[in-house]
């Protein structure tokens, strides 16, 4: 059966209900979004044990692959769906109390971001991937521009993001058309075992197709939109951009580079070149992101730049393409998502108390709110990769893989080490500001939803750090899934079930 498609539909239903609801009550929309994300998470968790045994392929409208559109429900994509739903749920929960009440349309767009991210990680069709990228894009531009603070700055940030994403998207469309005219198929599974393209053509088409994904994962030089977008967006949406959108982007990147372009694929003649290019970009990205974060006084922008660096590390891990490194990269990705969401929540709360995102205004905030400060430290330690926090195991595996691979991957090794040093410095500096400086008085208490979401996220990263064996089986089967040469066969054989 193809019931698994429901994974995609819960937030769509929520989004469709909102316009009529908001005509009755302006703030209608939180409840359907919350319910949809919770339902999706529970459903995905219920499917997980079965999918760990054998991946499933969803057929739509009863057309067999590669003619119809298919969705691959594998350990990797299902785990990603769970993460996305969880992050969406927590963000909406956080918003219940911590920001001014948002209009119904906000939740409509938010549900569409979640839908599109889920669609991206599940789909096995190139054009469908493009459509989902566009949905995520349009909803994100609007949400960035709707951010709190100055309308001019926010709209300018949204426009910058829109123009860059639009060019990348259109060029990807051109790449898809080229692939179709050379191969006659759009299914990623078919392309992963196909007669080889001409080397130059494969390189051109491959790079064009990767462009918007590079933008989503904020790889250099496609990340000039990041600073403005992160500082303009509301805290929960900035968290979503770095934990949901970037997460989905990285999974799609892994899928495209290791699945569709891996092994005996149509892109095989240029696969090495494309990977080398991505590795170089990854190394530059790590250094650029971490240095920019180091120099930044605006706390929200600092977190945004730090995400850039972390995504660079993840991409380096993927490119090394060895089981250990990919496992590490996935763990790094997952713990980054959880920790960044936590950090954005905490920062959002503190910024609402001081009125400015400037680091220097936050002196003594940690002593005024010890619990909130502790949450910040937990998030920071996870991102830095201190032993006993989950980020550590991820970085360790990626570093081991890079050292073992040698050659150009060594550049990645040193970039990650250097990046970690920078991370340590700027997070410790932020912690120092929070706890050891200043005597500023703060009024008001942290409210309930911040405490609740904070405890959930902190518990998740601490558990994953202390007992890595708990999530190890999932990570390993997800890495195997990503590196498997069977990707195409799994999808194409689904037609036999009809």
């Amino acid at each position, binding site marked *: 059966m193809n019931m698994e498609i429901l994974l995609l539909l819960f937030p769509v239903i929520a989004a469709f209900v909102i316009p009529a609801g908001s005509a009755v009550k302006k703030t209608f929309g939180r409840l359907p979004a919350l319910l949809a994300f919770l339902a999706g998470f529970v459903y995905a968790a219920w499917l997980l044990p079965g999918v760990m045994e054998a991946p499933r392929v969803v057929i739509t409208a009863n057309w067999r692959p590669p003619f119809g559109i298919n969705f691959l429900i594998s350990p990797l994509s299902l785990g990603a769906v769970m993460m996305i739903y969880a992050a969406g749920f927590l963000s909406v929960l956080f918003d219940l109390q911590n920001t001014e009440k948002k209009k119904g349309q906000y939740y409509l767009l938010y549900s569409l971001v979640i839908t599109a991210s889920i669609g991206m990680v599940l789909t096995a069709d190139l*054009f469908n991937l493009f*459509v989902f990228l*566009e949905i995520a*894009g*349009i909803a994100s*531009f*609007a949400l960035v*521009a709707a951010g709190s603070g*100055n*309308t*001019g*700055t*926010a*709209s*300018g940030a*949204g*426009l*910058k993001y*829109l*123009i860059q994403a*639009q*060019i990348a998207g*259109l*060029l990807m*469309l*051109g790449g*898809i*058309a*080229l692939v*179709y*005219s050379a191969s006659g198929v*759009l299914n990623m599974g078919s392309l992963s075992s196909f007669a080889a393209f001409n080397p130059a053509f494969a390189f051109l088409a491959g790079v064009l197709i990767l462009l918007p994904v590079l933008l989503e994962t904020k790889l250099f030089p496609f990340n000039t939109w990041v600073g403005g977008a992160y500082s303009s967006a509301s805290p929960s949406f900035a968290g979503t951009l770095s934990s949901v959108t970037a997460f989905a982007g990285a999974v799609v990147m892994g899928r495209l580079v290791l699945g569709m372009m891996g092994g005996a694929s149509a892109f095989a003649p240029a696969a090495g070149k494309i990977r080398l290019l991505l590795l170089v970009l990854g190394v530059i990205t790590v250094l650029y992101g971490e240095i920019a974060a180091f120099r930044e006084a605006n706390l929200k922008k600092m977190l945004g730049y730090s995400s850039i660096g972390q995504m660079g590390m993840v991409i380096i891990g993927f490119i090394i393409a060895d089981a250990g490194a990919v496992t590490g990269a996935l763990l790094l990705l997952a713990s980054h998502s959880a920790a960044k969401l936590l950090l954005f929540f905490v920062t959002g709360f503190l910024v609402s108390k001081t009125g400015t995102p400037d680091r220097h205004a936050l002196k003594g905030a940690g002593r005024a709110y010890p619990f909130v400060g502790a949450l910040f430290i937990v998030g920071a330690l996870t991102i830095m990769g201190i032993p006993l926090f989950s980020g550590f195991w991820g970085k360790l595996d990626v570093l081991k893989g890079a050292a073992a691979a040698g050659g150009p991957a060594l550049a990645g090794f040193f970039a990650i080490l250097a990046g970690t040093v920078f991370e340590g410095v700027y997070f410790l500096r932020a912690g120092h500001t929070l706890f050891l400086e200043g005597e500023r008085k703060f009024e008001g208490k942290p409210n309930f939803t911040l405490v609740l979401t904070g405890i959930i996220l902190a518990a998740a990263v601490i558990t994953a750090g202390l007992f890595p064996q708990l999530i190890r089986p999932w990570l390993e089967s997800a890495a195997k899934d990503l590196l498997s040469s069977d990707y195409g066969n799994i999808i194409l054989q689904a037609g036999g079930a009809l």
Partner: protein
Amino acid sequence: METVLFGISAFSLVLVGIYGVLTRRNIIKILLALNILETGINLLIVSLGNTPGGKAPILTGSTAPVTPDTALFFADPLPQALVLTSIVIGLGTTALALTLTLRYFRSRKSLELGAEMTREEAAE
């Protein structure tokens, strides 16, 4: 030959679009250039599915039965279906971008990205 001609005219629009986005400063002009780029890409996609002297992929009373042999005289329908989607996506983006432009102009009094904050804004 005719397909190549279609392709070249489409690609020229793509280049003009990218040139416009890179060099123009006025946001409205940039958006017009983006739309030109989009039109160019759409033309390119359809031209890649063009069959020289082909028929439109619509069956009418006067069409001969579509067998594996006669199917080859049709224009490829799939690129056309993709372009339908792409046109609608382009409209959605343009509408949103114009809304953002209006907001931007109202607060900055300028149509250039990266304009300085106005005095009232900085005072806020």
